[in-house]
């Protein structure tokens, strides 16, 4: 599970060969949450671009605009919701930390994880485009691992 993350130093992120990319417009974020528009890096032909996608992947064939925030590695190439995106529509999701909750009984303690040098990194992500009655939503999911999440 990965349900919150940070991009507190967006000026430090570095990606090669990205067009139309302006980090000066990015504000520091300390609590990026599902359903928000998040920064992603995708490949379109020869071009690599930075674009904002809604966090919570809605498969193109879905009847309702209900998003899934995480795609599990162990089943990503089998589940209909993810397999096509995994084969054709992958992205990077820049971040520099994330939160995880440790549940003990009724208490769920949040923890913050980051690199020891606080440097930015990228989550592996997938994306899809959903259309219905003239409205369209392009959305993404963060890939997670370990069997507990599946």
């Amino acid at each position, binding site marked *: *599970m*990965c349900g*919150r*993350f*940070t991009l*507190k130093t967006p000026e430090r992120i570095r*990606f*090669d060969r990205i067009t139309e990319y302006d980090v000066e417009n990015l504000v*520091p*974020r*300390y*609590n990026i*949450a599902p359903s*928000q528009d998040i920064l992603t*890096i*995708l*490949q379109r032909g020869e071009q*690599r671009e930075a674009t904002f996608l809604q966090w919570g992947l809605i498969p193109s064939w879905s009847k309702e605009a209900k998003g899934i925030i*995480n795609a599990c*590695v162990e089943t*990503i*190439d089998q589940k209909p919701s993810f397999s096509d995106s*995994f*084969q*054709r529509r*992958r*992205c*990077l999701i820049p971040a520099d*930390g*994330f*939160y*995880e909750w*440790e549940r*003990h009984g009724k*208490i769920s*303690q*949040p*923890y*913050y*994880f*980051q*690199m*020891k040098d606080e440097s930015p*990194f*990228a*989550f*592996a992500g997938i994306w899809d485009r959903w259309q219905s009655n003239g409205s369209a939503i392009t959305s993404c999911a*963060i*890939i*997670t*691992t*370990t069997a507990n*999440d599946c």
Partner: protein
Amino acid sequence: MPVILGSESYDLWLNEDCRSADLKDLLVPFTADAMTSHAVSYDVNNTKTDDERLLRPVEPNIGVTLSLF
């Protein structure tokens, strides 16, 4: 846990011609040694709260250390 890709994997991950078998090799837990963690305030539970005070270390209420990997 989220999959973190090293910068050496970016090209392969974004390559539209890359196939499943190669891709899954990239999706492994990140080296835990490179990361650090600390307990933070419950204020992060509220998605409307978005400021740097969320990152301040606090004493965890449950008395255990969380192991990520």
